[in-house]
């Protein structure tokens, strides 16, 4: 077994090295007349008076031009959110769902479909995936990014990002950090708050002339979880103290006028109480490491970029199931080369190839590992048909090879060769943007995304006891999500109000579940993960935002969404730990009002969720319980003591000492005091 693993790793390293070599050769062989400039987000934003992104089709675009329904949360909005973490920022965004299980444990979804260990969302930091491959979810505490290091958070709703490939099914969140070569960010902040919160964060940038720069960010916090009671069915573990620490270093070197090299390393640890995908609490520990290198060059054949990164994740959940803790260890290596170029004045194209290798050890029964390799090719074509109409088409083909090596428990219903499977999955998005007048923009969107079975439910999760046997399955199919959408933006010219409307219809096939399957064996039955059916969603999103007399800024977002699940009989009513139609609130309203006057800033955020249901675990499987409608109020008051010092008090769930918002423990009021120093 070890020799097989060793050979597999050698093969991986050889392939990665080969890709890197090819990328390097490509760069070296480029024509001499090249002029490098990676995305200078700040300069572009100042030029157009609006944020700029590359997250939708890979090419640089103004937010108002993108062929997708997209929200960009700016650094100012992050600061004024008063949040202590990224989910706290996201919860103020219309169309985003958060399930707050604890003080540090939040699941985030876009347009509903949110569950514990939410796995239908692709989360990236500067294009590097930060979701965990074991269950395809994002442990937000382990994301090694400080809020003060973020330039903008880009939220793309729906599967409108074919260029990212797998997992971008309900949306993509791409966190863009400051580039030390262009942005000089130096901040220290210290926070204390309720639940015993003590936190510190620092971001420092240093430039070495005009050719090189480095940004170091680090932060940590320590807090207690909520003290509200844990429902009996979820009380698998006693709450422990929570903490987080993260460090991230980014360096950018202008190798010459033609070429930029970026390198990044990060490390994070987190300990928190966490709702598991089977709706019981575990004490979770995370450790992540990452290394990334990116080479960018402008050439006669376009803007070329070669990226390679590796993420390591260690995740321990105790007490696990039947007192068998889980020790997930995974690694993903991604190498990608793309080129963006123009043909004439009206056509922008992007071509890319990508290689990805994921591997995960089995747990709690050890001795095996699951791996997959993905070979991808993608292309994008943006055509400015007229001065008012543009059409974007993006297509990506992923070819996935699944495999397993190692130990097979006696009586196991699968052999390693059952994992020798291959999928070829296309994903695409097509968007027509029509601007009939300066104040109007209409979007027609069609897209198809794929959710890959994560490594946990593909077999890395393996529990074998005399009484209970649970396993991932090699027989899972990727879940395919198709989305049709019409969007309209209108600017009311006089009062400077932006109105946004979107209507979407989404169809998900082969929904993936951790349970739902049952295989009898002579040694007893195995409960296995499975594809449990289909789901349809239809929704309407309306938004208004504007400014008033320069001092005030305001916004209101409303979402109406109806989901209809069509699951196999043994997955009905959440029995297979998945229920989308009952757990997604039909109505969601988010409103905000901000005020600035001299040294003072005041921001308030209101959130309303209509009645819904929440999943809970039972002795046999899972079911749902009612979650009443709720309204929350968040706020922040800040005073700039000097040009450099700011003092702020912020809070979440301010109107209630505790409030039931999920099927988990009630959410407590939080109040934080933060002192920031910019230098």
């Amino acid at each position, binding site marked *: 077994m070890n020799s097989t693993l060793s050979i597999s790793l050698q093969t991986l390293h050889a392939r990665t090295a080969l890709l890197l070599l090819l990328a390097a050769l490509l760069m070296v062989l480029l024509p001499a007349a090249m*002029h490098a*400039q990676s995305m*200078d987000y700040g300069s572009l934003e100042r030029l157009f008076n609006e944020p700029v992104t590359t997250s939708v089709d890979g090419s640089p675009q103004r937010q*108002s031009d993108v062929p997708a329904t997209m929200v960009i949360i700016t650094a100012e909005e992050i600061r004024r959110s008063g949040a202590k973490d990224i989910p706290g920022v996201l919860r103020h965004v219309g169309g985003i769902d958060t399930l707050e299980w604890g003080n540090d444990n939040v699941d985030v979804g876009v347009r509903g479909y949110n569950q514990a260990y939410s796995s239908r969302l692709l989360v990236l930091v500067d294009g590097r995936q930060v979701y965990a491959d074991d269950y395809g979810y994002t442990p937000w505490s382990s994301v090694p990014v400080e809020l003060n290091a973020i330039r903008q958070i880009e939220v793309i709703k729906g599967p409108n990002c074919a260029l990212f490939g797998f997992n971008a099914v309900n949306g993509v969140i791409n966190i863009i950090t400051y580039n030390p070569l262009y942005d000089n960010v130096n901040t220290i902040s210290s926070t204390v708050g309720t639940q015993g919160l003590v936190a510190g964060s620092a971001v420092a940038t240093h430039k070495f002339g*005009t050719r090189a720069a480095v940004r170091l960010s680090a932060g940590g916090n320590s807090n207690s979880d909520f003290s509200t009671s844990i429902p009996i069915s979820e009380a698998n573990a006693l709450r422990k103290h929570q903490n987080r620490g993260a460090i991230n270093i980014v360096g950018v070197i202008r190798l010459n006028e033609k070429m930029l090299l970026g390198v990044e390393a990060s490390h994070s640890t987190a300990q928190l109480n966490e709702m598991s995908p089977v709706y019981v609490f575990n004490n979770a520990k995370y450790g992540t490491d990452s290394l990334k290198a990116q080479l960018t060059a402008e050439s006669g054949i376009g*803007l070329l970029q070669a990226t390679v990164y590796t993420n390591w994740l260690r995740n321990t959940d105790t007490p696990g199931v039947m007192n068998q803790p889980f020790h997930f260890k995974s690694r993903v290596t991604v190498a990608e080369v793309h080129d*963006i170029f123009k043909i004439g004045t009206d056509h922008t194209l992007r071509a890319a190839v990508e290689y990805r290798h994921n591997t995960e050890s089995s747990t709690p029964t050890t001795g095996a590992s699951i791996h997959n390799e993905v070979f991808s090719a993608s292309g994008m074509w943006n055509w400015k048909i007229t001065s008012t109409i543009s059409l974007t088409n993006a297509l990506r083909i992923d070819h996935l090879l699944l495999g397993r090596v190692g130990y097979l428990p006696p009586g196991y219903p699968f052999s390693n060769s059952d994992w020798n499977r291959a999928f070829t999955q296309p994903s695409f998005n097509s968007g027509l943007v029509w601007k009939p007048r*300066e104040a109007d923009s209409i979007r027609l969107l069609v897209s198809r995304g794929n959710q890959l079975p994560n490594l946990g439910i593909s077999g890395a999760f393996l529990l074998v006891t005399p009484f209970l046997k649970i396993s991932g399955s090699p027989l899972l199919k990727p879940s395919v999500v198709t989305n049709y959408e019409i969007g309209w933006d209108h*600017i009311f010219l006089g009062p400077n109000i932006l109105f946004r409307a979107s209507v979407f219809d989404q169809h998900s096939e082969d929904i993936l579940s951790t349970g739902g399957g049952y295989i009898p064996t002579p040694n007893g039955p195995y409960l296995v993960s499975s594809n449990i059916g289909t789901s349809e969603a239809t929704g309407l999103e309306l938004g208004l935002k504007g400014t008033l007399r320069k001092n005030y800024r305001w916004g209101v977002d409303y979402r109406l969404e109806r989901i209809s699940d069509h699951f196999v009989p043994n997955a009905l009513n959440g029995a297979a730990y998945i229920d989308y139609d009952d757990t997604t609130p039909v109505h969601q309203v988010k409103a905000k009002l901000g005020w600035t006057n001299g040294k003072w800033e005041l921001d308030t955020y209101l959130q309303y969720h209509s009645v819904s249901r929440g999943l809970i675990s039972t002795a046999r499987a899972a079911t749902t319980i009612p979650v009443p409608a709720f309204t929350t109020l968040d706020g922040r008051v800040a005073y700039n003591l000097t040009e450099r010092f700011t003092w702020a008090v912020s809070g979440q769930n301010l109107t209630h000492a505790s409030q039931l918002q999920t099927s988990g423990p009630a959410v407590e009021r939080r109040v934080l005091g933060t002192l920031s120093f910019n230098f």
Partner: protein
Amino acid sequence: MRYRKFIPNISIVILTLFVMLVGVRSAHAMDRASIDAVQAAIHTLSFLESLPKDGPIIVGVLYSSDTPDARAMAESIAQLIGTMRGPNSRTLQPLVLATSALAQFPGHLDVLWLAAGVCKHAALIVASIRSHHVVSISDDPQCADTQCCVIAIRTGQRIEISLNTALAGAVGARFSLVFTMVVRRK
């Protein structure tokens, strides 16, 4: 006597009103859209790779010598540019130029802002910027029709930047690829 002691106060009031009127007149001389356009023009320089890397950036402000009040407007624009900073906080050095003096201008220019109304001298401008390798920028709607500006700026609810790629090539201007992808290319 009692009346007299108010005279200094009245003088202050009159003086204040005068200053306000002059101020208002000056504000009228350059409206918000023009200020936005000039700011956008300066921001485009961050993406002009052919711009010399060091020293102050010399920005000519060209006005039509046969248009009344054009010089005053050009001086307002020059004054505004003088308060701004270029890429990497570089100093901007404005220089007011009349169309009648353009052909014989002996000095060096990095950028030429075309004030409203100068595009009727398009042939002269194009010949001059080609020979001096200068990037011309304007928010005059006529500049796109007469093809005398490398960068055309339109402000309003949304800032639109158009790049005349042929003219950019003719004057030797090189913009970053990212910039050319995000603006309109003509």
